[in-house]
């Protein structure tokens, strides 16, 4: 690099630029918080849903599935599974309940988690809640 552009100029760009854009990130984050109530489906965030989220986490579902496109890519997207299963939490529960303990020979299999009725309901409600978030029209179609 030429001599006109000195080290101290480079340093100032670094400090100035980082501080400026960090503050901009904070400002946009603040603005995002303002916009959330319209989009984040918090009105359906019930205690059952909270419990469902906890179950989602402590069973590491995201280790195989994606949720709103984030997670693993081994098993189907679940952000819209509620719609894919015909807007039915019962269908979701039936699927989770019916996984064979030893898996399906030769196929990718989902474990049997032995959830009780209350837990099944919580997970299904959590997925229903997730499907109500405004995701700017993602995913492109029902297949996720």
């Amino acid at each position: 690099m030429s001599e006109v552009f000195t080290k101290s100029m480079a340093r100032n760009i670094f400090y100035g630029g980082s501080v400026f854009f960090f503050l901009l990130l904070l400002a946009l984050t603040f603005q995002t918080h303002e916009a959330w109530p319209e989009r984040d489906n918090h009105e359906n965030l019930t205690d059952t849903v909270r419990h469902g989220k906890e179950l989602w986490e402590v069973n590491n579902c995201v280790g195989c599935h994606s949720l709103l496109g984030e997670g693993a890519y081994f098993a189907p997207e679940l952000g819209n599974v509620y719609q894919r299963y015909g807007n039915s939490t019962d269908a979701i529960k039936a699927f989770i309940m019916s996984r064979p303990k030893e898996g399906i020979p030769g196929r990718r299999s989902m474990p049997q988690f032995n959830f009780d009725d209350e837990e099944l309901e919580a997970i299904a409600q959590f997925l229903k809640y997730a499907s109500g978030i405004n995701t700017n029209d993602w995913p492109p179609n029902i297949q996720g």
Partner: protein
Amino acid sequence: MKYESQSVAKLYFIAAIGLFVGQIVFGLVMGLQYVMGDFMFPEIPFNVARMVHTNLLIVWLLFGFMGAAYYLIPEEAETELHSPMLAKLMFWVFLVAGALTILGYLLVPYSTLAEMTGNSLLPTMGREFLEQPTITKIGIVIVALSFLYNVGFTVLKGRKTVITLVLLIGLAGLAIFFLFSFYNPDNLVKDKYYWWFVVHLWVEGVWELIMASILAFVLIKTTGVDREIIEKWLYIIIAMALITGLIGTGHHFFWIGAPEYWLWWGSIFSALEPIPFFMMTVFAFNMVNKRRINHPNQPAVLWALGTAVMAFLGAGVWGFMHTLAPVNYYTHGTQITAAHGHMAFYGAYVMIVLAIISYAMPLLRGRKACNSAASQVAEMWSFWLMTISMVFITLFLTGAGILQVYLQRFSDEPMSFMVVQDKIELFYWMREGAGVVFLIGLLLYVYSFFIGGEERTVEEKV
């Protein structure tokens, strides 16, 4: 090695390489599960293998970064490390905590692990990359703070260089942004939003500072180029990294419930993120061309150039490929993401750690400048085996990803996820094949440390 206390780095480097081998073994397990779904089921379900694979990656890179700091900070600061004892103690704390966590993943069901470790008191588990039990996370914070204290005080009492300053800012940022892993709101949208404050602001933010400073150190040592020039480059590279990368976080806010304006902010700023990676490539080649010495440690130079090129390809090119919102709408959460994640992590962070290990390890083992010619040849072979097989892993996953996007999301009659997975099986087999070559390369890398023989010494260039 100029300072006795630099030798603690050796422990960190050895642990890093050991865990790297474990990471790859579990990668291969998952690769097989992709095509033979019931492989090891139900003993090691896919999600368990995945946690082991990704968490080992993160932990060994952290070992690598800390080892790099313990090696280069005394040398840059021209003084002994503040407390070598503390560095050794924290090494064992981190290793034992890491090993127990991995064993926990493998030996008990994850929900049992959550219960055993009291996750309900402060729920932080079960989110991608942050699967560690809360007590492990607290352990990581303690290790990070002791480490920062140790290297911080070393710098304070010694010479302050731009390299140490940038490295310290990067490492402090790493610790600070990790604190977001303790924030796990019930609101899924907020949870996801702040999750990226750890993941994105690490790899496309503060880790770039760590990478650039280690690269600058290795280049100063192996090329003999004037420090002033290198420092100017370093500043401008990290300036571009943060200027683009901070707002670039927005490329993860497109579809998770954040407002629409992020489609613009995220697309525009993240489209600029390749710039710092491109500058690193130009920087590395420029410095090597302008070198004043021919350093006899050829693999170290090779890794340094390699990391610059591969980081640009993996992060810059493959990142750009899917970062604009209209493209990401279709590629989000597919094998395209996995392709990019692999090459970016390998090119930027695996290779920079291997570069500093390659430079420092011979010196830590009491050699004058480098390993024997035979050992260097083996190491360079391992470089090419790993790097080329990673290119193929990336290409195969990209092929799988393009088909997946087309069949599942783009065509007129979209097919279901599992049907599509069956159709693209061939690509997964080829990925697994390339993965086996990667493992062979890695084993050769490990073996190269055990090849003895006559060493060479530094020759000055005219």
